[in-house]
């Protein structure tokens, strides 16, 4: 009795935190168990530099999923902005591998190389120049005209937000989670 009581407490907590319904949480929990081999955490994630966890538990799993939920447009403007910021922050962290709050040129280059590395025709130089070009563009958006010897440190989170201002990320960064209840009742 006690066990089930606390389990549903947890589910409610997760529901509140992430916005998934209890059915969806149960389904995702089953998937999590499958991926983790019935362990409480998923291990053996790619070992990266400090800042990357090497294991995640179900709550982290669910939190990451919730970043991809569509923004509920019926919410007020402030909440919509908050959701957007959360999504962009997630993305920012994907680029900023050492979590120092700035995407430096080096980190940017790493991401571009990672995405393009499969193609044997592309040399490292091309990947670099692409990254450099993109970085320049970002600089011009964020800082405006720079002095010739001014060095651009890196993209901060605020700069990142500035780049994305006005651009609709909604259509790009969401996964359509189905509402389990409506399906079941159709039978």
């Amino acid at each position, binding site marked *: 009795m006690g066990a089930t009581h606390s389990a549903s407490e947890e589910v409610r907590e997760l529901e509140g935190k992430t916005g998934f319904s209890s*059915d*969806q949480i*149960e*389904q*995702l929990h089953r*998937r999590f168990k*499958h*991926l983790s081999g019935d362990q409480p955490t998923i291990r053996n994630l790619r070992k990266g530099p400090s800042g990357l966890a090497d294991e995640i538990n179900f709550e982290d799993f669910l939190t*990451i*999923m919730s970043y*991809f939920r569509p923004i509920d447009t019926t919410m007020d403007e402030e909440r919509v902005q908050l959701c957007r910021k959360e999504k962009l922050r997630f*993305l920012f962290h*994907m*680029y900023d591998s050492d979590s120092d709050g700035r995407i430096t040129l080096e980190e940017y280059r790493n*991401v*571009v190389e990672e*995405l*393009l*590395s*499969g*193609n044997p*025709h*592309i040399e490292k130089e*091309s990947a670099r*120049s*692409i*990254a*450099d*070009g*993109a970085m*320049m563009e*970002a600089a011009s958006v964020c800082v405006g005209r720079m002095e010739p010897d001014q060095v651009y440190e890196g993209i901060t989170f605020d700069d990142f937000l500035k*780049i994305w201002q006005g*651009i609709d*990320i909604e*259509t*790009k*960064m*969401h*996964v*359509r*989670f*189905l509402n*389990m*209840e409506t*399906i*079941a*009742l159709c*039978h």
Partner: protein
Amino acid sequence: MDSAELAGKIVYTWLTLVLGFILLPSAFGLSLGISELYMKILVKTLEWATLRIEKGVSKESVLKSSASVGIIQRDESPMEKGLSGLRGRDFELSDVFYFSKKGLEAIVEDEVTQRFSSEELVSWNLLTRTNVNFQYISPKLTMVWVLGVIVRYCVLLPLRVTLAFIGISFLVIGTTLVGQLPESSLRNRLSELVHLTCCRICVRALSGTIHYHNKQYRPQKGGICVANHTSPIDVLILTTDGCYAMVGQVHGGLMGIIQRAMVKACPHVWFERSEMKDRHLVTKRLREHIADKKKLPILIFPEGTCINNTSVMMFKKGSFEIGGTIYPVAIKYNPQFGDAFWNSSKYNMVSYLLRMMTSWAIVCDVWYMPPVTREEGEDAVQFANRVKSAIAIQGGLTELPWDGGLKRAKVKDTFKEEQQKNYSKMIVGNGSLNSELD
């Protein structure tokens, strides 16, 4: 009468009944109609149960029928479409969105890993093991379930175990005896008889109901029979209707005993584990076998591993390089009566067999299909895919290009690299740089 005598009498009566009602008819290929009656009662009971469950579902306690519908609706748009939009052809920060979305979709639900676990049923079939969320619906249903448990574990299970025991011992003893005879047509006929009788007994041991379709296309001597693979029981199902030469690895334990016994009566092709790795050796031995038109058709499962009977995965091209005539066979189990899929990472052979013997029944359809041969200009891979599609369509299964070996192995890096290649082709073209830099 004291208890020992009583026990003796019971066992004696039991064995006589079994002999009379099951073994003798099996030997002659007859059926007394008992299993048909059982199936009819079973079907009626399950229908009733389904109706009761549907009636009993209230607004709050929803039926978790998430079987074939997943939790997400995947975005199937290809890379070009997904990345286009506000961008030019150069690299954009937003490109990462597309990849992270695709990645997340794959993490939540992919079409391959779900094939390595049992299919979820649309409506409960009164077995605890298929009830993902046990919900108390009504006392009547619970009573029927309890009755079902009693019938399955106390009546059916002992019967089935007895039959299985008798069947396997008869097989081992029979084939050893027949193996003593000199090589002659009498010996072949006897070995066929022993084979078929034992298979029929074993099928009754699982309460199997098998429908064979298109028997005119049954595999002939000197050919190769290929089928989709769901469990070791596939072999039993096919051999009940004809004799085949098996191909496979030498196992230890119970399987090993059966294998060694079978080889004595008629030539099968068993390989040592180390020999399996040498593809040329395997191909050579199989070619020799089918060249001899008097030898039985070879039975091969090209998927290489057990899949859960909802889809057909990549057929390995090895079997299709041997030449000769291929006889495709599609096998489809009805999951409502019992789940035949062997999840070898979860259950070992013995617990799997116990699960089989405590299900309601094993019901399946077998479709024999017209023989095919490799066409001019078709290579082994294309041929394999052609046969795979035919089997998938006939059996009503989905077709997946993925390798069944992914059950245990990781995806090869070449797949990841291909995605990267596609992306970089979009950005940079084939080696020429496309952007204007200050």
